[in-house]
């Protein structure tokens, strides 16, 4: 029952993109260039205002050499 209720709620995603980027000393523009997206997209993802598509999420995971769930997780 709780699982069904959880499905009905909007899932808020959180991510570690900013931390991972900072660890590599990349700017948002650097990351955007590597992902072939705009800097605004990176900023929107980092601040949780936009959830990337699955293909982009996989691309991010590949770039940081981590599984998707290590970067993106369901928020509280």
């Amino acid at each position: 029952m709780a699982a069904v209720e959880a499905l009905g709620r909007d899932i808020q995603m959180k991510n570690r993109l900013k931390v991972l980027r900072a660890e590599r000393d990349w700017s948002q523009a650097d990351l955007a260039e590597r992902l072939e997206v705009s800097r605004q997209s990176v900023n929107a993802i980092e601040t949780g205002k936009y959830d990337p598509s699955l293909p982009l999420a996989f691309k991010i995971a590949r770039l940081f050499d981590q599984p998707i769930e290590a970067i993106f997780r369901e928020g509280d």
Partner: protein
Amino acid sequence: MFEQRTLRVWGYSLAGGLVAFIVWIVGVRLVWGPGASVLGHDGRIVATTLAAAASMACLAASARFAFRQMDEFYQQGSRVAWYWGGIVGLLVSVPIAIFVEFGGLTLLAPYASAIHVTSHLTPEEGRARVAIFRMGYLLPVLAQGIGFAIVAAWWRLSKR
């Protein structure tokens, strides 16, 4: 200052607009020029319509190229903007259209000369003008609604 991607989007949009404008101008000049009298009045109407369609096809092509240049964040933003912006625009336009149709403009500008002239219209002329206004209002509303329905149907069918 601007990213390459943004410049490409603007480039495609501007180029599309320019080409569409040229196609329209050339089309009109060809159709309504002295050499095209063989078309006749009806032929000219059809040819002008075709020129407008060709011009809009150029805009459609540039819109497609521009959209494909956007990254998914901006594509999503564009979808949201067109969906909600379109719906809100349509909903807001209804009371405005009703206000105008029932003569509300006279409340805003009771001494405007254009409105003063309409006060001398016969009831039939007044009704004809209201009908013309209604058709003018409904054309873009219906076109947008039909366009939305077609794309929505195509999207659902293509995802089956």
